[in-house]
């Protein structure tokens, strides 16, 4: 499903995406994958194997909480939700990201005369 126009994921952003996806509602691992794909309009496609190590890392850092539940098709699945610490981290990272984007934008828009 790779597309030349798909955005490439910068390292370190996976965690932020996961936090955001989960913040919209408790999800199991596969659901996180689907939601990121869906919300980004298909532009962001997470490498499946990298997902679970990231999830476990976030859980060990106490940013995510887990609970076993039943999925839509009546199978047992592990659901992830944000902890208060996770919510805080999401907020901080988002602010940092937006500052980065603004700075990058200023630099990229600069014209030869402005230098």
């Amino acid at each position, binding site marked *: 499903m790779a597309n030349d126009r798909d955005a490439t994921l910068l390292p370190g952003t996976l965690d932020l995406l996961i936090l955001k996806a989960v913040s919209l509602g408790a999800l*199991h*691992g*596969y659901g996180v994958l689907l939601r990121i794909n869906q919300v980004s309009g298909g532009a962001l496609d997470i*490498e*499946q*194997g*990298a997902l*679970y*190590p*990231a999830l*476990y*890392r976030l859980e*060990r850092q106490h940013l995510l909480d887990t609970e076993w539940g039943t*999925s839509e*098709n009546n*199978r*047992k*699945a*592990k659901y992830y939700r944000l902890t208060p610490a996770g919510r805080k981290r999401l907020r901080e990272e988002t602010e940092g990201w937006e500052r980065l984007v603004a700075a990058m934008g200023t630099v990229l828009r600069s014209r030869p005369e402005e230098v």
Partner: protein
Amino acid sequence: MHAELQFHLDARTDDLMRGGLTRPDAERRARLEFGGVASYKDEIREAFGLRLIDDLGRDLAYAWRSLRRTPTFAVTAAGAIAFGVAVNATLFSLVYALILRPLPVRDPGTIRNVFMETRGDGSRGTHGTQSVVSFAEFAFMRAHAHTAELAGISEAELSCKCTADGTLGAQLVSDNLLPLIGATPALGRFFTSEETATPGSQAVAVLSWSAWKNHFNGDAAIVGRSVTMNRTPFTIIGVADERTTGPLLMKPDVWIPYTMQALTREGDPFIRDANMGWIEILARRRPDASDATMLAELRVLGQQALTAHGSKQTAVVSMAPGAFLNDPTITREGLIPASLLFLAVTLVLLIACANVANMLLARGFARRREIAIRLSIGAGRQRLFRQFLTESALLGMLGGALGLTLSQLAVRLVVASIPASDIGPHQMNLSADWRIVLYTLVVSLLASLVFGIVPALRLLRDDLAPALKTDTLEPAPARRRVPLQSLLVAGQAGLCLLLLVNAGLLLRGFDRGLRMDRGLATGQVLIVSFDLRQQQYTPARAQQLLAQLRERAAVMPGVDAASLTTLTPFVSMSFDAAKAIDANGAPGQQFGVTDEHVGADFFQTMRINTVRGRGISGAELETGARVVVVDEELARTYYGGLDAVGRRINPGGGRENDCEIVGVVSATHPISWARADRPKMYLPMRGLDYIGGHVLVHYRGAPEAIVAALRQGASELDPNVTATVTPIEHNVTSAMAPVRMAAAAVSTLGGLALVLACSGLYGVVSFTVGRRRREIGIRVALGADRARILRLVVGQGLRPMLAGAAIGIVLAAASARLLRAMLFGVSPIDPITFTATAALLCAAALVAALVPARAALRVDPAEALRHD
């Protein structure tokens, strides 16, 4: 985790199927998309924190393989650790078996030993330990205790014709003691409360299982039979079950009510004296009480019990979880020797650790290449460090396991070496229960940390690049590696010398103690004793028998003098109290004394010097006159000087007991270096209501003829009694047994330390020689004198050892002070001991260094130069 990943795959498969693929295609696609699960598993496991455990497993396997490749190293290192751990574990096992191990009773968790000592004005007698209570006090405390159930116990020996040696070990107990410890009657029943209510009332007895089997042939009809003990017929009312062996260190043959106490001490019963303690208290805490509330209640009750019979003293009540030897006097007196021993075994372990550290340094040096390669292909330093520690831990555990086995053997050897006559049938459990194993484990791990951490750090710090380039064993900068090994050797030498000096001092002290002038005869005296309890002897008749034998002995050829006494020389002591009476006839403060009742010619027989006045005369003994002889300490302290003759003293009881002092003798020093010597008083033996006593005979020349003559004389006086003749040297040796054992223990430790230190030096010197083969070969090829090389190598090896020894001497001088009490007057900085042990260490070190150094002489220069 597996379930979660499976769910993911299934969900993806479902989606793909909804998109139109067949199931097999969808499954394959889903799996392909996910990628190699195995490769992610590692990352996942790391994220999970399981990495550490995986690494540990891998490290252990690697360490095991590398140890197997170098078996000599493994065996030597593990052996050194084993010795160090073994001495530690042995000491701990002994202490544990005696003082910490729960009693062999039902539910030992709630059992407590209760101790009561007294302080302050007033005299108090104790029989056995010093933390016992009297019959009246026990009855009071038991009746009023709510937080625990109190039971009483005391030990005694009864004479009985039913055994080979004529004695039975007995425990006098309250009615509730046997049920309290969980005993059940295998036959018959135990005591009722009526049977233990009135003193002297009921002669009933319960046999132990082993006594029933061994002395009564397991007679099924034993219940109701009568057995005569101490001349009294006892009815056997029951036999205890096989598992019951009593709550004390010694296993009894029979239990009798404690109200029968008067029977066990003819003429001197304790039971009616409210101020005479003889009962040990064993208590079971009630389920709803805590230790704190129990102790609080017992403290109050103890004091009340004391004041109830008019004593003005203060009760000091203490409590400990049930164990054999946790009496506060023992723990107080034993604390210092035990701590010193623990220190000594720790020193041995440290020396062993230094050995292994040196070995690891040498080994690590040989593995430089391997480590350099591993570092260069990306192993983290932390990772390698962890691996080295794991190797050390494995080595430590192997050594520890071996050490534990060794210690089990050693403990049994130590206990077996104590003569059985001195301790009797004990029930010390020497097996290794989980606490001992845990202790050994902890010690082994700590040791592996100690010996492993420095080589590991050292290895990772150095620049290892040169190691990759060259294949030789030459070090890059030769200087840096040697100092650490030298430091360890020096440390070993210092600790070793410390141990050796202390051992030497103790040995000298012991020797001096044996030969010390104690103020009384330690040899050439025979002690004749009878066991008259079984015969139909009254105290008066017993005194007559002893006096008659004494008269016969006094005129035997080879005999210098003969006398009588109530105490067994060097074994028993009798504590009492007396009051000095001043010139105006007024009695002073009561003070503690030791006393002894003696017969005629006592001071000549025991070679005690008379300083003033005279001994007790025959006439005075006949009439039972009120005279005493005191020792010079009593005279000096309470009568202002040696001239106490003619003054009066009150040895207890009412004023009618006032006595006149007729002589002052030199002070004597019985061998009890923990208890303070009290002033001593000698009273005439005649008129005592006492069935025991000994005849003392001082002789010249060979004793055999006199022993025979004494036995002959005894049987002529009464053919039914057997006389036991003991040479006084035997008692002296027994009394010195604790010091002898301490000296033996420390000597063994010192010897072990010496062996370890020397083998360490040996290892270091042979390592150095091996490393410098090329250099030595070059020197020899260039014409150097081989002897000079030998001196060089040996000198370099010995230098750190000498430096360490010097420091060790200083340490020893400082620490020997602690031993002063056990040295019997040998100076803690005795020059002979110091020089002798230093010389011993240097000589041993010289040998240890010479042997491998001689290998340096045999280096063929041509071969060494070629060796690459």
